Every structure is written in structure tokens, then in C-alpha cells.
């Protein structure tokens, strides 16, 4: 019998690290269009951050603060990707026709906005959802 471990150091650093990871994943996600990265990798990194939280805390306390059904999240992700494809069709374009344009936004200056980004959001959501579903399913099986 051992005394209960004190996880203060781990918890503190984990929170910080998670913030860095999330920032980084968002960065990866946005950079995808011009630099290495993109929805898939961004999603997986986010998932990694969530897994880190699960690791150092526990599933239930994270679920309490982040009450998300990851299966649904994944489904919504795929749906977003599909619907960006469908959206083009309403304008008489082909399925999955992506458009992009350059807009002068007040804060960001000239910014490129592409429907492909929306597609990528779907990808990212799907990846996060699936990855977490797999991880939690397995760990709930009392391995």
C-alpha cells in the first residue's frame, strides 16, 4: 500500500502544455493551406492534447468540463465536409467545388478565405472525434 500520489506538478504543467498543444494544433490547422499541416494533422494534435488531459487527470473529470459526445462530433465533422461539397452545387457548380477569395478584414488585414478551410474543419472534427472515440472505448474496456 502506497500513499496516494501527489500530481500537482504534473497537473500544472499538463494544463500549460495542453494550451501550447491546442495553440499549436490550431496553428497547424490554419497553416495547412500554405505550409505543412492541415485538418488531419491539426485534428490529431488536438486529439493528442485531449489525450494528455485524460492521461494526467481522468476521463470523468474531463468529460465533466468538456461534455462532448465524440462520436457525434466525428459524424458532424464528416457531415461538414460533405455539406461544403454540396454547397457548391447550390450555385450550380460541381460537387466539392471550392472557392477562395481575398478579403480585407478590419483586424487581420488582407486575408484569404477559402471554402476549403471549412472542409478542413470537417476533417479536423472528424479526426478528433474518431481518435478520442477509439481511445476512450479502449480504455473503458478495463484493459
Amino acid at each position, binding site marked *: 500500500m502506497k500513499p496516494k500520489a501527489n500530481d500537482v506538478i504534473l497537473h500544472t504543467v499538463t494544463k500549460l502544455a495542453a494550451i501550447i498543444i491546442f495553440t499549436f494544433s490550431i496553428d497547424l490547422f490554419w497553416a495547412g493551406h*500554405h*505550409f505543412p499541416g492541415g485538418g488531419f494533422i491539426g485534428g490529431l494534435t488536438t486529439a493528442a492534447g485531449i489525450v494528455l488531459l485524460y492521461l494526467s487527470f481522468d476521463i470523468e473529470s474531463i468529460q465533466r468540463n468538456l461534455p462532448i459526445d465524440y462520436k457525434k462530433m466525428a459524424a458532424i465533422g464528416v457531415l461538414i465536409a460533405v455539406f461544403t461539397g454540396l454547397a457548391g452545387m447550390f450555385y450550380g457548380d460541381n460537387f466539392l467545388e471550392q472557392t477562395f477569395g481575398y478579403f480585407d478584414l478590419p483586424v487581420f488585414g488582407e486575408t484569404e478565405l477559402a471554402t476549403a478551410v471549412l472542409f478542413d474543419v470537417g476533417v479536423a472534427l472528424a479526426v478528433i472525434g474518431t481518435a478520442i472515440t477509439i481511445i476512450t472505448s479502449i480504455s473503458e474496456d478495463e484493459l
Partner: protein
Amino acid sequence: MESLMAIVIGILFSIGTYLILSNQMLRIILGLSLISHAINIMIIVMGGLKTGGPPLLSNSDRGFTDAVPQALILTAIVINFAVTAFLLVLSYRTYKKHGTDDMNNLRGNEHE
């Protein structure tokens, strides 16, 4: 480089095949993973190696390597990951249910 990689691919295939033929769940899955690694290398080799810089337009001073195989591999990696995840959990469940990880004991020809 291409020839070297061809030999590496062959070796990976051989090892993978040997592992797959060894009747043990874990070995089979390891073998399949090795083969899929080999195939990823093969695809990128088929696109031509080191013919230019990374396919990022920002450093456009040199030519670019063929980006198509890279995109294909990306898709293949993800699909492969999905399949492997499923297979792993499946094999784990099968082991739990049957109590063996030896495929030779999982013939299932006897009448149940």
C-alpha cells in the same frame, strides 16, 4: 536511391510476409504494418525521388517533387491507421473471447 529503396521494399515485404505467415495474431498484424510501410515507401519512390524541393510554393526557387504520390500516401496512411486500429481491437476481442492468439486454433471447422 530508387534501386536501394527497391531492395529495402523487398526486404520489408519479405519480413512482413514471414511474419504474416506465422499464425500468431500480433505477428500477423506486425507483418501487415510492415508491408503497409513498404507500400508507402514504394508509392513515394514511384513518384520519383529528390527531383526537387518540398511541394511548398513558398520556397519556389527549385522545382518540386511530385506531390501526387505524397497526397496518395497521406490518404493511405490514414486509411491504414483506421484499419489497423480496428484490427487491433478486433484481435484483442477475439483473444479475449477465444482465449487464444494462435490462428491455428481459430479454424472453426468443427461444428459449433
